[in-house]
């Protein structure tokens, strides 16, 4: 199994979840209201107040071949809007 961590602006959350659903993600977990710093600068809590939203952190546990399908859907969104995606290994408990 693989673990996919996606971190990007809250504003794109719906778009991203749709992409994950389309790509066949067996499930996902969302933490909202996270902040951070990346190549595009810092995202602070006051973003939330301006309707831009802070960041969202989405975790997907899935099989390796599902991951490939997800990557095809997810990468264009990250490229267009910014945000990051990382993969690591995981094993079902």
């Amino acid at each position, binding site marked *: 199994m693989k673990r996919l961590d996606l971190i990007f602006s809250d504003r794109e959350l719906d778009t991203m979840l749709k992409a994950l659903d389309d790509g066949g993600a067996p499930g996902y977990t969302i933490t909202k209201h996270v902040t951070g710093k990346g190549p595009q600068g810092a995202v*602070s809590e006051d973003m939330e107040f301006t*309707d831009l939203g802070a960041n969202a952190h989405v975790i997907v546990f899935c099989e390796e071949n599902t991951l490939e399908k997800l990557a095809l859907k997810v990468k264009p969104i990250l490229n267009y809007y910014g945000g990051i995606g990382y993969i690591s290994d995981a094993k079902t408990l």
Partner: protein
Amino acid sequence: MDTNLVLQNVLTPPVLFFFLGTIAVVLRSDLEIPAPLPKLFSFYLLLAIGFKGGLELESSGFGIQVVQTVGAAVLMSLILPLICFFILRLKLDVFNSAAIAAAYGSISAVTFITAESFLENLNVHFDGFMVAALALMESPAIIVGLLLVKVAAPAERPNAKRIRWKSILHEAMLNGSVYLLIGSLLIGFLTAANNPSGVEKMHPFTGNLFYGAECFFLLDMGIVAAKRLPRLLKAGSFLIAFAIAMPLFNAFLGVLVAKFLELGPGNALLFVVLCASASYIAVPAAMRMTVPEAKSSYYISTALGLTFPFNIVFGIPLYMGMVNKFIPMVS
């Protein structure tokens, strides 16, 4: 500048709480209003201001002056971004220029609210229908901003998504804040027309509480604005100058239009404040979605980090001075 008016503005609780917030940041106090409390207060203010505006709109009806004023307001929100855009293009690319222009064509509800409190403090009359102008000026500038991108930057955007007008209109009109304001306006209108006891029962919430909630919210706005300002300073002197000169210029245009419309001094000030203020809520959300090439730190920091505090502290009394000069006071 009429120092007396500035002082009268500064020594009111809302502006003092705004200062308390900014000074907290300057002194590096750890005072912080955690999310989602700012949302609570901003929703409350929109709901209350919309509801009260609706009540008054119902009692004033849709006379010629109402239609004229609101129409002129919408027109301003279409013209002002064009002017801003050409000025911004002197130094910035199309994307950033269009996004910032859209912000300055749109409005800031909190600036409007503070101007209302300022007028109440001076006992100058204004009309509830100005809230309708506020509501209708939020979105049009977004459309202008996107049209500017479409017209001025086709070739530069190879991997841009096709602009889908439906989803943009949607974003512009149905942004949560815009929607809540317009919805509350309608509800206020309907309630006033059909259910006078409902109006009375709402009053402790939408009326009595308003001033205090405004203070609490401005405390947070003071913190947020003061945290934003350094990012603007990094963006360079052009944007700093723009964030102060542009509101002044837009206010001046606003005064001329207000005079032409023969608005009373209270309505005139609100009209001018709508022209002079810049959006940091609805517009950034729409711009992020449609023009990701523009730096959000530019359009938020100018509107929120400098123009907003400038208007709250100096702008409002200054514009009042301009209004008093150009529009003969009839009380």
